[in-house]
């Protein structure tokens, strides 16, 4: 187990290193020039050149990379080119906000998806199954900027149940932020729900076919006990993986949702960074997202192993 973890860890380091190279290179090829963007299109050449020098944009690329990567490891994530303040507190604060939104979304779509998936499996190929499978897949395909705007139109502007915009102060607490989290969380959930439902459904259908389920049934256990003790423990295994990986997706992939609602998470921060060509901000945010992805992947695998003794990795 330890050797397995060590090996996985080494792979993660390699992934992060490669990702850092890609992120750094990619940001160099963004169209436009940072200094020009900061000073505006009407500033003189001299002013732009002075600023380039000041920001260290004229140094050779490999030096810039080493400075950046070295600093990143030491916890110095650079200074925002636009606000001239350290990037790390901004990114961490936004990460916290994205986490609030992620928790909220997980609380909505995971239980709901499991319940719907089980119902669909039990009523396989009957109307409830068709309804659940059809609708949830339709939501997976619906882009967030469409579902988000529809939700705003109905629930925020039509019924005025929730605020139409979630541009809260970035340092708001979870309790204060709660009403502003509902609509974005539902928007995200609509996408996530379909995957969970589908996974649960197919897992449950597989397990329902197993002999031990029939045996449990035949020995006279009540149906709900069979379901919870014998079916779900096995059928939810693949779902756990999807949930764990979903955390990575939730923390990094909310760019559209956060932009539609103006929610101050990591996604909106990245959009801002790209618009302003704030390279340190883009680089730090992207690295964090990559890190979360790789670690949530690892978590999914480890969790899967723990829950499923059959594939536990040998010593």
């Amino acid at each position, binding site marked *: 187990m330890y050797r397995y973890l060590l090996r996985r860890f080494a792979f993660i380091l390699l992934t992060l290193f490669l990702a850092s190279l890609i992120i750094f290179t990619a940001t160099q090829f963004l*169209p*436009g*020039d940072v200094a*020009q*963007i*900061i*000073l*505006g*299109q*009407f*500033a*003189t*050449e*001299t*002013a*732009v050149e*002075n600023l380039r020098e000041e920001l260290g944009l004229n140094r050779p690329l490999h030096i810039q990379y080493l400075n950046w990567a070295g600093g990143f490891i030491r916890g110095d994530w650079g200074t*925002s080119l*636009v*606000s*001239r*303040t350290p990037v790390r507190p*901004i990114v961490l604060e936004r990460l916290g906000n994205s986490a609030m939104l992620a928790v909220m979304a997980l609380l909505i779509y995971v239980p709901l998806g499991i319940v719907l998936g089980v119902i669909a499996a039990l009523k396989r190929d009957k109307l409830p199954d068709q309804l659940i499978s059809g609708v949830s897949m339709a939501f997976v395909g619906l882009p967030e*900027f469409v579902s988000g*705007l529809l939700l*705003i139109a109905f629930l*925020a*502007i039509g019924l*005025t149940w929730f*605020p*139409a*915009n979630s*541009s809260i*102060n*970035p340092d708001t607490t979870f309790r204060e932020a709660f009403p502003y989290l509902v609509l974005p969380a539902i928007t995200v959930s609509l996408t996530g729900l379909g995957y969970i439902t589908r996974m649960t459904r197919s897992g449950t259908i597989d397990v329902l076919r197993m002999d031990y389920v029939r045996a449990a049934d035949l020995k006279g256990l009540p149906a709900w006990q069979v379901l919870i003790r014998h079916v779900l423990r096995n059928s939810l295994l693949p779902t756990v993986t999807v949930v764990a990986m979903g955390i990575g997706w939730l923390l990094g992939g909310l760019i559209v949702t956060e*932009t*539609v*609602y*103006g929610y*101050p998470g990591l996604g*909106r*921060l990245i*959009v*801002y*960074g790209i*618009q*302003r060509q704030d390279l340190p*901000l883009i680089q730090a945010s992207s690295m964090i997202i990559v890190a979360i992805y790789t670690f949530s992947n690892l978590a999914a695998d480890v969790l899967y192993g723990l829950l499923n003794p059959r594939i536990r990795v040998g010593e």
Partner: protein
Amino acid sequence: MKKILITAAMVLFSLLVLASCGPADTVEEETPEALSPKHGGVLRTAYYAPTNLDPAFLSTVADDQIGRQWSDFLVYIDEENQPDESRSVAEEWSADEAAKVWTFKLREGVLFHDGKEMTSRDVKFTFDRLRDPDIGAATVALYENIVDVTTPDEYTIVFELAESNPDFLKDLADYHALIMDADNEDFATNFNGTGPFMIESYVPEDRIIFARNPNYWMTDEEGFPLPYLDGIELIFLSDSTAQIEALRGGQIDYLIYLPTEFIPMLEEDPNIVVYQAPSNTAYVLRMRSDEGPAADDHVRQAMKMATDRSAILDGAIDGMGVTGRDTPIGPAYGEFYLDVPEPERDVEGAKALLAEAGYGDGFDIVLTTQESSPVPAIATIWKEQMAEIGINVEIQLVPSDVYYGADNMWLEVPFGITDWGSRPYPQPYLDLAYICDAQWNESHWCDPELDELADAAAKEMDHEERIRLYHEIQEIFMKRGPIIIPFFINNIWASGADLDGFEPTSGLGTAMDLRPVYFTGQQ
């Protein structure tokens, strides 16, 4: 209960009015500030994030909007494009006959937010900084004509010019010319201004919060101190749909520079008021006149004849503007504008002109088009109109920051659509884009006759003669100019129905003045 409150408020109000009628100049400023029923409330608004708050390097609308809240102009240009002493920190000014020596008398007792009094030293510092080539602000060329700035005393400031400049007051109102504190050492982080609002907090990637400046120098007609609002909260939202939904959802009170496609929806909303005012903002379809087919006057003329301006105005922005005449001087300039009827579209005439120029079989061009609305719509409609005279237009879409990016695509491409914002007077357009050696001569046009007229108009002190010169310039543009201006788009903004006090602003260099804006539902 409510009645009692209202009566009490009325009594209080009349007392205040009486008090303000009392003997003036009694130095009793220490008593708590008397506020009117219009006072109070925080204005919430949203816009794209600013790029720079240092006045010397303001470039976007957001930058401008923020700057004019925390600072002031020496000369304020009003909604009719006239200098307004009552809104300027200079209370009076005069020029010698040649308009070469300009003297300004500053208001006394104008305080910076940190309590320091603003004097002529700060004003001199401001303009010296803006014209310093080593600092390299966007205004260096604009203020090249200034020979010296002197300060005979604390409240007097004198500008000496190399050449006559009848527009000098308007030059001084350029949006970069916010009066700075001469002791400020870091303009990126220190926003010590004299403006109506003080920056309370600024998070570049999230929002900026302003608090009312309790010491602001301006008062309303009844003598109450301005501004009325307790503060402003400007949230940076990078998505226009999100901005609009926030307004419709009542989470913000006010939005500027609205895209036309949202207007019909907003106008139906009983809680929202939409304002429109004509402006000189245009999407200029400019043609390289030094190479390619458009180097031929006939070809440019044919393309203008084949353009249906009304169709583009209706199709691209739902008619929320006025059609152009292919000159940068629009109807918003009143007398300077040469008012001729919109030319009839003439496809046959255009074809004949093309044939005369040797392009009887037409030709292919690439039109570089910014992705931001409404430019792609303009390009698409124009492309169809050109197809009718055999010109095949290929639309090349690029993001705006690439179009204006480091490679200066907008100055190089053969055909492009460039947006030019409103200015309080026509001269800058000519000097910046159309004289032979203009800094942004994007169409690479060079017409000695135009240069001569533009130079004369810049210095002409006689108003009637100046009008004549500008009219002549517009005739040249119509005859052989390098641009097509399908329309001038209205300046459009919206607010909650409970906000009032907006002056309809053409956007000719004057962005929204929030000093007189107030909530109607107070008390």
